[in-house]
C-alpha cells in the first residue's frame, strides 16, 4: 500500500496536534493542583489519561477512515478523537466541563461523543467493542457504507467483551476492525503479568479472522496493516484483529508516580518518541524543515484557539445536570 506525501504530512501534523494538545492540557490540568495534588481542583478536574506516545496508532488507523465510519474509543481517547476529526474546540470545552462542550459538561474527557464524525468512547474496559459490532451490523443491514473501528488497550483482551465481540463479528461477518493498543501496561500490571499469550494477534485464529501484529510503534507500518484490514472490512471480507506495539510516555493517569516502571524505561521510551522519528523520515524524503515548521505553527494555532474557546466559554447552569437524561431532553424524578 503506497502512502502519499499528503497522507504522510497529515499523519505528522495530526500526531503533532495530539501531542501539543495534550502537553497543553497537562499544564492546565496542574493549575490549582499544587502544592497539594487534589484531583477535584483546577479548571480541569477529574482523572486525566494522556495518550502521548500512542499517536502513531491513531493516525495510522484513522488515515483510512471517513466521517461516516464509526470509532469506539477508550478512557484514553484524545489522540483517536483528534485523528478521527472530532471538533477540537468543543472537545476541549468538554474537557473543561463547559456549556459549549460536546455534551455541555456532562461527559468530560472519558465520554467524548461527536455525532458529526461518529466518534464515541467509554471509560469501561473493552465495552466499546459490542457497540462497534452493532454499528457495523447496522451498516450491513441498511446496506450503507462505513466500517467500525474499535480501539482497546492490551489490558482489555482478557475481558469477556473482547472474546464475545470477536466471535460475534466473525460469525456475522461484520465490517469491523479491532485495534489493540499495546502500551505494555494495564495501569501498573504489565502485559506479561496479565496475559497468557505474548502477542494477542494469535487470538484472532480462535475466531477465524486475520490477526496482525505491528512492532515498534511505526506509523507507516500501522498505516499499511490498518489499511489492509479496513479495506477488507469495507469490501465485505469481515473483521480483523490488529495489535500494535506502542507506548505511553506518561503515567496511566496524571498523578501516577509510575514506580512500577523498571529503571530507565521512561528515558528509553522518550528516546524512541515517534514524532521526532517521523520528522526525520519526512526530512530524509525531501520535506523541508520550513514546511514542517509551518505545520507546527498551524498546530499551535489550533491548540491555542481550542484552549481559548474552552477557557472563554461559560459553565452551563448547574441545573442543566437534570436534563438530557432521556431522549426528549427530560429527566424523570
Amino acid at each position, binding site marked *: 500500500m503506497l502512502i502519499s506525501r499528503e497522507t504522510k504530512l497529515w499523519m505528522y501534523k495530526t500526531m503533532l496536534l495530539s501531542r501539543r494538545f495534550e502537553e497543553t492540557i497537562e499544564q492546565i490540568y496542574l493549575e490549582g493542583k499544587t502544592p497539594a495534588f487534589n484531583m477535584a481542583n483546577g479548571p480541569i478536574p477529574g482523572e486525566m489519561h494522556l495518550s502521548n506516545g500512542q499517536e502513531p496508532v491513531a493516525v495510522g488507523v484513522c488515515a483510512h477512515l471517513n466521517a461516516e465510519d464509526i470509532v469506539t474509543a477508550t478512557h484514553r481517547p484524545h489522540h483517536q478523537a483528534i485523528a478521527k476529526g472530532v471538533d477540537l474546540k468543543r472537545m476541549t470545552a468538554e474537557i473543561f466541563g463547559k456549556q459549549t462542550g460536546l455534551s455541555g459538561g456532562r461527559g468530560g474527557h472519558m465520554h467524548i461523543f461527536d455525532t458529526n464524525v461518529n466518534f464515541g468512547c*467509554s471509560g469501561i474496559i473493552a*465495552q466499546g467493542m*459490542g457497540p462497534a459490532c*452493532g454499528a457495523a451490523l447496522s451498516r450491513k*443491514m441498511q446496506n450503507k457504507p462505513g466500517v467500525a473501528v474499535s480501539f482497546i488497550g492490551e489490558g482489555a483482551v482478557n475481558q469477556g*467483551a473482547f472474546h464475545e465481540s470477536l*466471535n460475534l463479528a466473525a460469525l456475522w461477518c461484520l465490517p469491523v476492525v479491532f485495534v489493540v493498543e499495546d502500551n505494555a501496561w494495564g495501569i501498573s500490571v504489565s502485559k506479561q503479568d496479565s496475559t497468557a499469550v505474548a502477542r494477542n494477534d494469535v487470538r484472532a485464529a480462535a475466531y477465524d479472522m486475520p490477526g496482525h501484529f505491528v512492532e515498534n510503534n511505526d506509523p507507516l507500518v500501522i498505516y499499511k496493516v490498518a489499511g489492509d484490514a479496513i479495506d477488507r472490512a469495507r469490501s465485505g471480507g469481515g473483521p480483523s484483529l490488529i495489535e500494535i506495539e506502542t507506548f505511553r510516555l506518561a503515567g496511566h493517569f496524571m498523578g501516577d508516580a509510575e514506580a512500577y516502571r523498571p529503571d530507565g524505561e521512561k528515558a528509553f521510551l522518550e528516546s524512541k518518541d515517534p514524532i521526532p522519528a517521523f520528522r526525520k523520515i519526512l526530512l530524509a524524503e525531501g520535506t523541508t524543515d520550513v514546511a514542517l515548521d509551518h505545520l507546527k505553527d498551524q498546530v499551535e494555532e489550533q491548540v491555542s484557539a481550542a484552549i481559548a474557546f474552552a477557557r472563554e466559554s461559560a459553565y452551563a447552569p448547574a441545573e442543566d445536570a437534570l436534563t438530557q437524561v432521556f431522549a*426528549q431532553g427530560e429527566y*424523570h424524578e
Partner: protein
Amino acid sequence: MSNTKIRRLTIARAMAEAIQQEMQSDPRVFVMGEDIGALGGVFGNTRGLLEEFGRERIRDTPISETAFIGAGVGAAQDGMRPVVELMFVDFFGVCFDAIYNNMAKNNYFSGGNVKVPMVLMTSTGGGYSDAGQHSQCLYATFAHLPGMKVVSPSNAYDAKGMMIAAIRDDSPVVFMYHKGLQGMGWLGTEAAATVDTPEQPYQVELGKAKIVREGSDVTIVGLAMGVHNALKAADKLAEEGVNAEVVDLRSLVPLDRETVISSVKKTGRLIVVDEDYQSYGVSGEVITSVVEHDYSLLRSGPKRVAYPDVPIPFARHMEQFCLPNADKIVAAFHAM
C-alpha cells in the same frame, strides 16, 4: 377503530404481534437474542416472526449477552431500532455494563446528541420452582439506574400497546414481562392476563399507571403479577365489605406518582405489592412518593407485601411461602 378486530390474546402473542406490526411498518426494527428465531422465544414473544421476516431481522445470537446487548446499543445509535432480548432478567449480571453504562448513559454523556432507541425485553418472576437464578424480578435494580425507561405490563392489551410505544420511543426501554403472565401453560399462567386485544396497532403511553379497580377504603398498588394478586385480594376484601382500589403501575420509570397520590387522597390507606425484594425497592419508592407529598394523607401506616430479602428458594412450599399473594395482602389490610 370501529372495524377493529378484537381477539383474546396472551401477553406472549400480544408482544409478538406488536413487534410484527412495527417490523412491517418500520424497516429499522429488528430483533436479536437467544432462541428468538426458530424457537420463537423461550417465552413465546417472537413466535412466527422468523417465518415472516427471515434470519437477517430475526437474529438468533450466540450466548454472548455482553456482545449482543452492546451491539444493540451500537445499532440503535446508528439509526436502527433493535428489540433485544435478555432471556431471563437474572442473567443481567454477565452484561450489565452494556445496559447501564452504555445504553442508559450515552444520551446523557452526548448531551442528547446520541439517541439509543432500543428495547431490551426480559422475563421476570417465579412461582414455578426455578430457584433464585431464574425467578427474580429485579425491577428496582433497573429502575434505580437513570437513563432507561422501565415498564412491566400485567395483561395482553397493555403489553401490545406498551411494546409498540417502547419501540417508537427514542429512549431505551427495559420491557420486563412476567413469566407467570405469558400465557405459557407450562409456567402455570395467570388466566386474567389473557384479555381482549385489538388487531390494529395502538400505543399505551409509557409512564402512566392505571386504576384497574375503583374503591374508596384502601389503595393497593402493584405491577405485573402483583396486580393480579391485588385484584384477588380486592375480591376477598369486598366479601368483608371493604372497597379496595387497585392501581397498576405499568411503568416504574417514569413513575406515575400522581395517580398513586390521587388514589391515596381518596382512600387514606396504602398497600404496595411487589414480587421484587422488599428492601430498597419499588414498595419503598411508592410509599415515599405519598409520604413526601403529604404524609397526612395516610390514616394508618402504609404496608408492603413484597418478597423477603432472601435468594429465591427452590422447594415449592418454601418459594410459595415467600411470594406475595392475595391472603398476605388481606392480612396486611387487617393489620392497618
